[in-house]
């Protein structure tokens, strides 16, 4: 590489860093998260080691020998050096020595048994029940329901409890509360019926909204083209409003429009129709609302692009079609629409991409309802990862949903890019010699 190109790269480096940070990193992180079981329970940092009732159940399911299991359960109270030293400190050397003489090396399953042993000491040195309980706890060696912050501490505890070495890796794995690498998300995702429902919903959402966007955008562009300039500008400005309105405001308006005390209900009640929530009462109404909301917002974009494309058609070509005898309809059909082929393709591909990944208007309006009937893939990813009713946010599973969406998006962009390249071939500038 020449020096000048290194220099160029150096100048570009801030931009490269930005690209890496804000464009590539999200995708990479999504990819990483998708292969983990991260959730609220595991946290995103490391975890600790805990054995509890549910992990015991999991251990049994995973084939832990019953002997080992009962060993874990019964590793209750052990009279060992450490405990005796603590006892000596709390209640005097004499007490410790006597207790050691009677019970050294013994294991008690229950605290009550330890307490009784303490009570049975000559002269009953620990009189208060509360103190006896505390003293018994000094010998507690159970690893159940104990939180160990490091692997070393946990392994030491297993060692102390005398758990057989071959069983330890399994126990360690299940006791770990942090996240781990796994491909289970993908299996789970493919096995869930709801996944296919999300895919179907996304298909409906993208297809109908896209059709609405393109057809309505075209309609607006063509009608405003034939209007006098001032009216056309006013119309375009009005149709552009939804796009510049904050989504929340726009949705508030729609909600008010469809509420059971809202506009539609109020008007229809005058005709004897009982009022109801027109957005969420049926699946069908929910879809119509979702498609209209997104359609109106998206149509403004199509309208702007198509309008400027129409205005780029040389006026003389339109004049020519008029003197050739073409009516307005024929002019639109034979002259204007064919020349909008590439803008239409552009809008189609661009909107496919943004619709695939967009869910904010659905989230704000139906939130996937009623009963998940308008839950699209991107919204499912959001709900799973960031906004779960159950409270356990499954970052890993959500990232898996998102990752699949990224893959579909990349494939679709490659497909559209090929189409656009094809266009370049068609309209290669012709150099006259």
């Amino acid at each position, binding site marked *: 590489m020449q020096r000048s190109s290194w220099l160029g790269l150096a100048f570009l480096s801030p931009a490269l860093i930005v690209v890496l940070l804000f464009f590539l990193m999200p995708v990479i992180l999504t990819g990483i998260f998708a292969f983990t079981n991260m959730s609220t329970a595991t946290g995103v940092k490391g975890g600790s080691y805990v054995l509890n009732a549910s992990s015991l159940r999991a251990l049994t399911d995973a084939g832990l020998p019953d002997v080992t299991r009962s060993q874990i359960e019964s590793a209750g109270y052990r009279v060992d050096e450490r405990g005796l030293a603590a006892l000596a400190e709390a209640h005097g050397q004499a007490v410790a020595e006597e207790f050691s003489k009677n019970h050294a090396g013994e294991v008690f399953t229950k605290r009550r048994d330890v307490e009784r042993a303490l009570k049975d000491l000559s002269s009953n040195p620990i009189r208060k029940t509360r103190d006896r309980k505390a003293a018994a706890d000094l010998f507690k060696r159970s690893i159940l329901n104990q939180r160990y912050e490091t692997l070393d501490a946990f392994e030491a505890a297993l060692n102390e409890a005398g758990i057989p070495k071959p069983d330890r890796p399994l126990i360690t794995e299940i006791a770990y509360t942090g996240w781990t690498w796994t491909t289970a998300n993908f299996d789970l995702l493919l096995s869930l019926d709801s996944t296919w429902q999300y895919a179907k919903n996304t298909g409906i959402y993208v297809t109908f909204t896209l059709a609405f966007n393109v057809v309505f955008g075209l309609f607006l562009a063509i009608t405003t083209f034939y209007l006098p300039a001032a009216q056309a500008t006013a119309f375009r400005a009005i149709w552009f409003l939804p796009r510049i309105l904050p989504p929340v405001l726009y949705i508030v308006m729609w909600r008010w429009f469809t509420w059971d005390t809202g506009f539609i209900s109020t008007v229809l009640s005058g005709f004897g129709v009982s009022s109801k929530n027109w957005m969420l009462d049926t699946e069908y109404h929910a879809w119509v609302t979702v498609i209209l909301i997104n359609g109106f917002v998206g149509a403004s974009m199509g309208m702007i692009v198509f309008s400027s494309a129409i205005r780029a058609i040389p006026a*003389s070509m339109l004049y*020519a079609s*008029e003197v*050739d005898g073409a009516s307005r309809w024929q002019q639109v059909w034979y002259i204007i629409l064919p020349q909008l082929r590439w803008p239409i393709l552009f809008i189609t591909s661009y909107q496919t991409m943004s619709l695939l990944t967009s869910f904010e208007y659905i989230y704000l309006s139906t939130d996937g309802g009623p009963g998940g009937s308008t839950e699209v893939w991107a919204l499912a990813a959001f709900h799973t990862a960031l906004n779960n009713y159950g409270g356990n946010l499954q970052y890993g599973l959500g990232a898996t949903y998102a990752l699949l969406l990224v893959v579909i998006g990349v494939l679709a962009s490659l497909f559209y890019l090929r189409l656009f390249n094809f266009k370049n071939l068609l309209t290669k500038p012709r150099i006259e010699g």
Partner: protein
Amino acid sequence: MRISITNFTKTFGDTTVIKDMSLEIESGEMLALLGPSGCGKSTTLFSICGIHRMNAGRLRFGDKDVTKRPPQERNVGVVFQNYALYPHMDVHANIAFPLKVRKEPRAEIDRKVLEIAALVHIEELLQRKPSQLSGGQQQRVALARALVRKPDILLLDEPLANLDAKLRLEMRSEIRRIQQQTGITAVLVTHDQVEAMSMCDRIALMNKGDIVQVCKPKEMYDNPASDFVAGFLGNPPIAFLDGIANDGEIRLANSEVALRLPSNVIDLSNGTQLRLGIRPEFFQPENDMKVTGKVSFVETQGREDLFDVTLTNGAVLRSIQSRGGDIKLGDEVTWGISREHILAFGPGGERL
């Protein structure tokens, strides 16, 4: 078909482009709308075919009043300055378009397209897209599209402006041939006097939205109605001398030189402001009414040489002569003006 325009006015917003224009174009005639850029030629043409609405006045094709008719109902073929071919259709579809929108049967369309393609010699180009054609070929396609439905009138807006010199010559005679072969009434818009004179039966010369003279090309050259017409026609252009009439002579401004006036204006009253127009071919060494000046410009035009001669008062005369002399820049020459060919104009530019 005869076209008659009466009291036509066209305004865009506040600017009046055409004011009170009247023009008659005979059936089967080819008329040139000639004039400098921006004088309203295209505006007139677009009003004839209905693209522009007339603000006032009447337009008749034959006996039919079409003033209020939309372009679709006028049956006019138009060739636009940039041809305005439809880039997404091939040549066949371009030519067939006027028939297709009339929903003529396919077989009929194909027959007519082939027929017209033969007339303009583009049979072998029918499958190409406009972007695959040369300028001259595009021009022929535009012509074919304008003619295919047998329009009553053919309008051409500077059809040759985008062609190179050789092709322009070729297409000039080609368009004329097709016009005469079909006998169609045609209006040719151009700012090129040679084009207008060589292709058309008559010329309507326009200036600032007005028609200043309508007549046959030769007559307009020999007998211009004003100094504007005289100055517009002729290449190299006519030269003007300003002065004051005095006893059948003209005393040139700021000088002692006096020249005899042509016989048709000899009895002007003394003191009248005058403007004489002298074409280069009438300022020659052998003519008898001599003037003296310095050669201030020499241009060799192949067969002929062109000279500018600056007189003592600063006025310039032009002369075009066969080659052969050895006159150089700065030489003093005494050449003669052909008295009876002098064109005399009054103070307002009107012909005397």
